[in-house]
């Protein structure tokens, strides 16, 4: 920590007052802004520290690269966005107004090159009349092919900060929480509500975005509660809340989203305010709170609106309330010679406070014909120069405001008289009025009501139960109203929770001052038509002017949502917290509509930007998604397998030997399986035990074929449809006992099939007595396949494996390598195959025993890729590859498995008129006329090439491989009217203009009689 004498610190911060505010002048903090080293104090934000050093220019604007300064003192800041830290521990677009200062903090300004003071992009400002609203849409639409070129240039010029180039080195966390009452905002209303409910016994969470409690009271040097300084009341309230074990206070925590049934998302910045060396090991950088509460109170305050006048964006032009906050909370005067521009009484508070600390207030320019109201009267009494019925018509100054013009305003507010008078200033503050922060109320689908007197939207009715809005967020702009409203809401929440809140013995005493009377002007006129001689900025972050909004209206946009998107007003990271109502007002006036008829744009989460890290939490890297591995996985790894992800399963894909690529390895695995014996880990196939007296009946209803007569000990292939007749899954099901079946599903469909069966059983057929149990992970499954499979298995198995004793499509219980096993003689390769199921814990040892005994036969482990080739040679489908949710069994040519005698899920759909259409896509085989060419999977198929596009597509390739056993390429495809095209030629056009002619054939390429299978 840098320690220096208070006197020295003060002298280095020329705009810091010698006393007052919530900062610790006994300690100095050194920070870097671009290449300047500056100091501030604990309690400062970056913005307050910059202003204390006289720094107003903090960035260049998004589109015109105009010099921009700090405008606000909070979350609504549009301009003062900075890049914090160094890559990779860096974050762009951080609001300087909320960034807490720490010793060693390093930040850079954004959107400037080569430097903030001299910025080449500033030429855009001179070109601005060629950069109107919708510029990108208009300019870069044609020719479409050039978009890729445009995009690079635009991306280079656009955007503000820089994203880190490497993975985030910090860690983040998520927390679930439940409470009786969530209070968002710890100003006077929120604290009052929290105190009342906590005293009644409610479990309360208080969320405050700031690092201090008190809300607007922190910025008020005169407010009193019960005759004492208001911050004393705040301190006592905080102490009482912190002492209660039922209350949790979350500071630096923004409640950024309201979801259904009082579920809220909160973003807590846990360690950002600490110097890196002071960040405790083990604490996350940010924490995402997912909070469910029974009652919610939004005490989110109000945000002051700026006035929209010509060239209202120069550094040194602030919100009146912001200048007051810097003065009273941080002991910083934002200038030496000030002008206050207001249309209501609250602007005078800033004028009076500035005067009180010795800032020269050169004028108060008041839109109102007469300055009325308690503070206006006090200003008069204090001798301030008031220009009533005047407007600021323009400003001048290069990188800081230097002077302005003020002229008498017409009675209708649409024009000014004369060019007015010039007033020098280095600080101009404005106040149009206050907008309640209704975001959470609106996100929760609460309605708004227009308050004409205050020119603002107020929360009307909550859509969800147990929600209330209080304080200035609800239009209670006076301190006494906030305190009383908070207490009432706290009591009501406690009552809804079944708790009793005692009425306080005496009413908390405070002043109750509104900001009325006011005069609302959404756009302040100047001596020239709008858009000439300067710009009236509505949205400073996105550089949207009042003239842009009018242009959008002239071009035909009417809906405020369209105007917003076309002009991009309100679409920056600040989401238009300052500008939206002004934009709506300007649009309403031009359309000649009452403002409420224009409507409001949708309030969407998040209220302020949330780091991706907070959403990701610990679900990164290996924890991103569970990985499922089989009991034999370690063997695959040791034997050099490459893996592919099938859902969450990691399956052996192929086992390359030295020098082999995928193609060579798969060719070897496929050939070995046909020539001697291959072994595959099939554990991942879904396994469901179906038990109960009605088990066979359930199968009858969910499979297309019949199951009642399947004997115990036999297996049958089944095809499962959805009720729309489309293939959902397939697999072999075996009868283990009269009332017990084992169903296998495809790897990816294990859970969906179980859910499908459960749904039918529970919702439609509760009368069936059947239980379903997933046993996928209870068994390890290995497949021996190939001419030597029987010989090998016989060495380790106690069963008679002869075809007579153990025919194709049957199963038996025996032992393999001394382990109890179920052996199924079923085949997905077309070879003599045995699927061996053993208890999962024995999987590895049985696999190793089979492998050891198989070495003399040249046993070859094969992966999923070889399996795909082997089954394609036989024309066996893979659900999800040959089918895509729009394919019926008839399309697949599998009519043989569709029962004509019984009903089943999907049957009626198969006789819909469309199903008989001969033009439906049907499964066929394709043989390229050049046998060496392997078609790309997904390749489009056409009948003939034409010069004119589009060429009608008649289908696509679903599977395509080099088949070592056929010594040529083979493919499966879905082709319109495919079976009628047998023997005909279709074309597969490839990238680069090449077209591959293919002959349509039956989808069966190898061992057409099936002799090997039944060997």
């Amino acid at each position: 920590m840098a320690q220096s004498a208070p006197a020295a610190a003060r002298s280095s911060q020329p705009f810091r007052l010698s006393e007052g505010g919530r900062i610790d002048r006994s300690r100095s903090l050194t920070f870097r802004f671009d290449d300047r080293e500056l100091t501030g104090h604990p309690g400062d934000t970056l913005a307050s520290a910059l202003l204390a050093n006289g720094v107003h220019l903090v960035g260049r604007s998004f589109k015109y690269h105009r010099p921009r300064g700090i405008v606000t003192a909070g979350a609504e800041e549009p301009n003062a966005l900075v890049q914090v830290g160094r890559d990779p521990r860096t974050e762009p677009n951080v609001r300087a107004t909320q960034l807490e200062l720490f010793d060693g903090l390093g930040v850079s300004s954004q959107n400037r090159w080569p430097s903030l003071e001299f910025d080449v992009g500033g030429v855009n400002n001179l070109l601005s009349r060629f950069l109107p609203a919708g510029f990108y849409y208009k300019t870069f639409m044609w020719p479409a092919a050039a978009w890729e070129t445009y995009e690079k240039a635009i991306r280079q010029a656009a955007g503000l900060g820089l994203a880190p180039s490497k993975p985030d080195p910090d860690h983040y966390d998520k927390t679930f929480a439940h409470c009786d009452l969530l209070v968002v905002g710890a100003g006077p209303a929120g604290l009052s509500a929290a105190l009342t409910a906590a005293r009644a016994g409610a479990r309360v969470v208080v969320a405050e975005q700031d690092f201090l409690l008190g809300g607007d009271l922190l910025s008020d040097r005169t407010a009193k509660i019960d005759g004492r300084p208001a911050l004393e009341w705040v301190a006592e309230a905080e102490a009482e809340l912190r002492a209660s074990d039922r209350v949790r206070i979350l500071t630096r925590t923004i409640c950024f989203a309201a979801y259904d049934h009082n579920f809220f998302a909160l973003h807590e910045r846990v360690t950002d305010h600490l110097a890196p060396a002071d960040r405790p090991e083990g604490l996350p950088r940010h924490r995402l709170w997912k909070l469910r509460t029974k009652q919610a109170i939004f005490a989110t305050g109000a945000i002051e609106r700026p006035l929209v006048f010509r060239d209202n964006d120069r550094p040194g032009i602030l919100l009146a309330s912001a200048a007051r906050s810097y003065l009273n909370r941080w002991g910083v005067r934002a200038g030496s010679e000030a002008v206050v521009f207001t249309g209501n009484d609250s602007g005078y508070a800033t004028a009076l406070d500035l005067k009180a600390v010795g800032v020269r207030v050169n004028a108060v320019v008041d839109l109102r014909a007469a300055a009325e109201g308690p503070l206006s009267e006090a200003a008069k009494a204090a001798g301030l120069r008031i220009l009533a019925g005047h407007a600021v018509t323009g400003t001048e100054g290069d990188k800081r405001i230097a002077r302005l013009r003020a002229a008498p305003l017409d009675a209708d507010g649409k024009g000014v008289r004369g060019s007015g008078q010039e007033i020098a200033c280095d600080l101009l503050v404005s106040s149009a009025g206050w907008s309640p922060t209704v975001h959470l109320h609106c996100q929760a689908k609460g309605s708004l009501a227009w308050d004409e007197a205050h020119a603002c939207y107020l929360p009307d009715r909550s859509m969800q139960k147990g929600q209330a809005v209080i304080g200035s967020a609800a239009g209670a702009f006076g301190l006494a109203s906030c305190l009383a409203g908070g207490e009432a809401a706290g009591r009501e929440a406690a009552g809804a929770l079944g708790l009793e809140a005692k009425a306080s013995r005496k009413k908390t005493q405070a002043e109750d001052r509104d900001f009325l009377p006011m005069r609302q002007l959404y756009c302040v006129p100047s001596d020239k038509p709008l858009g000439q001689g300067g710009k009236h900025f509505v949205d400073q972050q996105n550089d949207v002017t009042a003239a842009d909004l009018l242009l959008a209206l002239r071009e035909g946009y009417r809906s405020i949502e369209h105007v917003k998107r076309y002009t991009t007003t309100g679409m920056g990271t600040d989401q238009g917290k300052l500008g939206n109502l002004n934009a709506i007002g300007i649009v309403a006036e031009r359309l000649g509509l009452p403002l409420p008829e224009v409507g409001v744009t949708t309030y969407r989460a998040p209220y302020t930007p949330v780091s991706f890290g907070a959403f990701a939490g610990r679900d990164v890297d290996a924890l991103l998604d569970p990985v499922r591995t089989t009991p034999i996985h370690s063997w695959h790894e040791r034997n050099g397998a490459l893996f592919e992800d099938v859902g969450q399963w990691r399956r052996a894909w192929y086992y390359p030997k030295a020098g082999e690529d995928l193609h060579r390895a798969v060719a070897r695995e496929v050939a070995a399986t046909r020539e001697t014996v291959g072994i595959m880990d099939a554990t991942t196939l879904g396994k469901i035990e179906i038990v109960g007296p009605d088990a066979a009946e359930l199968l009858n209803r969910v499979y297309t074929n019949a199951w009642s007569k399947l004997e115990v000990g036999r297996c049958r292939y089944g095809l499962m449809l959805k009720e729309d007749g489309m293939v959902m899954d397939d697999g072999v099901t075996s009868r283990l006992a009269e009332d017990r079946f084992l169903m296998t599903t495809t790897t990816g469909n294990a859970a969906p099939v179980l859910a499908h069966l459960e749904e039918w059983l529970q919702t439609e057929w509760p009368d069936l007595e059947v239980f379903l149990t997933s046993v996928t992970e209870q068994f390890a499954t290995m497949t021996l396949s190939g001419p030597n499979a029987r010989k090998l298995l016989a060495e380790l198995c106690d069963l008679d494996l002869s075809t007579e004793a153990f025919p194709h499509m049957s199963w038996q219980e025996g032992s393999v390598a001394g382990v109890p096993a179920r052996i199924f003689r079923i085949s997905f390769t077309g070879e003599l195959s045995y699927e061996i199921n053993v208890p999962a814990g024995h999987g590895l040892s049985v696999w190793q025993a089979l492998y050891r005994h198989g070495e003399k036969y040249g046993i070859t482990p094969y992966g999923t890729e070889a399996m795909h080739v082997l089954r394609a040679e036989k024309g066996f489908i893979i659900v999800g590859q040959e089918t895509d949710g729009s394919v019926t069994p008839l399309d697949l040519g599998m009519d043989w498995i569709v029962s004509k005698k019984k009903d089943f899920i999907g049957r009626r759909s198969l006789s819909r008129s469309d199903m008989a259409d001969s033009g439906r896509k049907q499964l066929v085989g394709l043989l390229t006329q050049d046998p060496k060419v392997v078609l790309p999977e997904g390749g489009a198929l056409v009948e003939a090439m034409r010069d004119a596009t589009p060429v009608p597509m008649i289908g696509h390739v679903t599977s395509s491989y080099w088949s070592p056993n056929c010594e040529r390429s083979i493919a499966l495809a879905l082709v319109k009217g495919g079976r009628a095209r047998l023997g005909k030629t279709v074309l597969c056009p490839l990238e680069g203009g090449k077209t591959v002619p293919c002959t349509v054939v039956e989808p069966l390429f190898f061992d057409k009689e099936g002799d090997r299978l039944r060997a």
Partner: protein
Amino acid sequence: MLLIDCPHCGPRAELEFSYGHEAHIERPKAPEALSDAEWADYLFLRDNTKGVILERWVHSHGCRRWFNVARDTVTYEILAVYPMGAEPPALERKTYV
């Protein structure tokens, strides 16, 4: 995120559940006797009520049991939870314009 009161497990967050669309649609007893239009009506056509709807949910990541819910599609308020096969409780079938 809805808070759904599973009849077997109690109130749990929506992400534990899967949605099962409109409730009380019975599978026709004799599908083959239906016209294509009647079958399509059973298969595809669902009410799109602005107001109280009766729908099915399953506690996929809990007890895996199906049940019925009466929910207001405007406020998202859950008005009742009742078992499969039961008649819907008497409710004010509020609709909105």
